[in-house]
């Protein structure tokens, strides 16, 4: 077994070129659970949490986008000013685990693991984020919708490293809600991210924990675009309920040891309807 701790992106990519199937270790909050339990016995580990190029975020006011390095932690995403630029991501980050987990866990790790319950992923999906990958051979970028393939499956190829994600700064309310058994330290049983784009006059809704990967609700989104008033920030109670029903209908949950499919579908309806009312608080 070998463990490499590169301090630069070029060193990380060179190490990954030598061992394309190495375990890329970010915050360790998912991977080390598997190592500790003996479910994963890596022969090569590349720990990337000291790669400085991955540890920062930048705001580009010209394109109104934020680029988040894959090594930025949830704790950092909760801090001003990135929290004001991407409020739903800050809100989702605050629901991840505990302070201990948020100091270690990263958005890049969330993408790499690609669990349907990953708290950052509904936000990246609702914002139509772009994922950046690099290898010794070059770089490529793809939509998060193409990046997430299935349960813990992504488009990342052997030898590739997730370097970051680009998210738009939208005008309009956005938020994240999830259901679990506690207020802290909980894996989402069902989660929703709603983002309003006042300029584009649309509402985006993404669901977590109710499908093999994050789901976008195109029917509910199309309904919302006609049902709400972007000028007066209003929606009727009946239309908010209908929005929740369409979201629940778009969910594809399963029964497992955490919750039943029926409970999850119901929760999605409640959460989606509630988020729409928060975004459009007037009747």
């Amino acid at each position, binding site marked *: 077994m070998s463990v490499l701790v590169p301090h630069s992106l070029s060193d990380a990519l060179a190490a990954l070129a030598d061992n394309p199937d190495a375990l890329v270790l970010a915050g360790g909050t998912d991977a080390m659970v598997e190592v500790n339990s003996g479910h994963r016995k890596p022969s090569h580990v590349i720990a990337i949490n000291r790669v400085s190029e991955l540890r920062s975020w930048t705001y580009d006011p010209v394109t109104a986008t934020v680029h988040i390095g894959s090594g930025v932690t949830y704790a950092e995403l909760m801090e001003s000013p990135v929290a004001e630029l991407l409020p739903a991501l800050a809100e989702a980050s605050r629901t991840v685990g505990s*302070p201990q987990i948020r100091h270690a866990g990263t958005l890049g790790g969330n993408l790499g693991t690609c669990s349907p319950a990953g708290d950052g992923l509904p936000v990246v999906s609702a914002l139509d984020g772009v994922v950046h990958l690099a290898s010794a051979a070059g770089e490529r970028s793809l939509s998060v919708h193409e990046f997430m393939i299935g349960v813990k499956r992504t488009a990342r190829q052997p030898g590739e490293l997730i370097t970051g994600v680009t998210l738009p700064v939208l005008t309009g309310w956005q938020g994240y809600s999830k259901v679990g058994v506690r207020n802290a330290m909980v894996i989402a049983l069902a989660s929703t991210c709603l983002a309003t784009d006042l300029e584009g006059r649309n509402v985006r809704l993404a669901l977590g924990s109710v499908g093999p990967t994050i789901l976008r609700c195109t029917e509910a989104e199309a309904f919302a675009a006609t049902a709400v008033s972007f000028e007066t920030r209003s929606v009727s109670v009946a239309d908010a309920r209908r929005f929740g029903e369409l979201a629940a209908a778009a969910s594809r949950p399963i029964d497992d040891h955490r919750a039943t499919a029926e409970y999850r579908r119901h929760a999605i309806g409640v959460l989606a309807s509630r988020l729409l009312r928060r975004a459009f608080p007037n009747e």
Partner: protein
Amino acid sequence: MSESVALNEQYELHVNGEVRPVRDSWLGESLLYVLRERLGLLGSKGACEQGECGSCSVLVDDELVCSCLVLAASAVDQSIVTIEGVAPIGSPSDVQQAFVDAGAVQCGFCTPGLIMATHALLERIADPTEFEIREELSGNVCRCTGYGRIIEAVQRVAVSRRDSGQS
């Protein structure tokens, strides 16, 4: 610059201000395991080994983390502080003393992690509200106390530091 270690190769950790060699370990061992089983530092407790309980909390480069989720060999050039590094035996820190005074210790298993988390909390927020205390300590599970006296202990430290002009 890149640090590399291979199987059975000795590596060094910086723990509580000392350089500690780690020998004959499997490189997949967690920092918690290495602290306890290789370095004999038994203060950090192991329970869930999946980041749920917080009883293994330590500081790595000044950040509060679960040592069970840190790959020890990846922490080679980082500063690690465990409960043993908080205060010398026999002269407890203000947080440790407040836990004793407030009756915040029962079986004591969660206490080292909670002491680490409380020190980190008060570094960040000198005068926390009860809500902030509950949120900041939410990663540390205690099955005895019901948390009331733990919160009281944190508040006592905040008040005494404020009164003595430390914050």
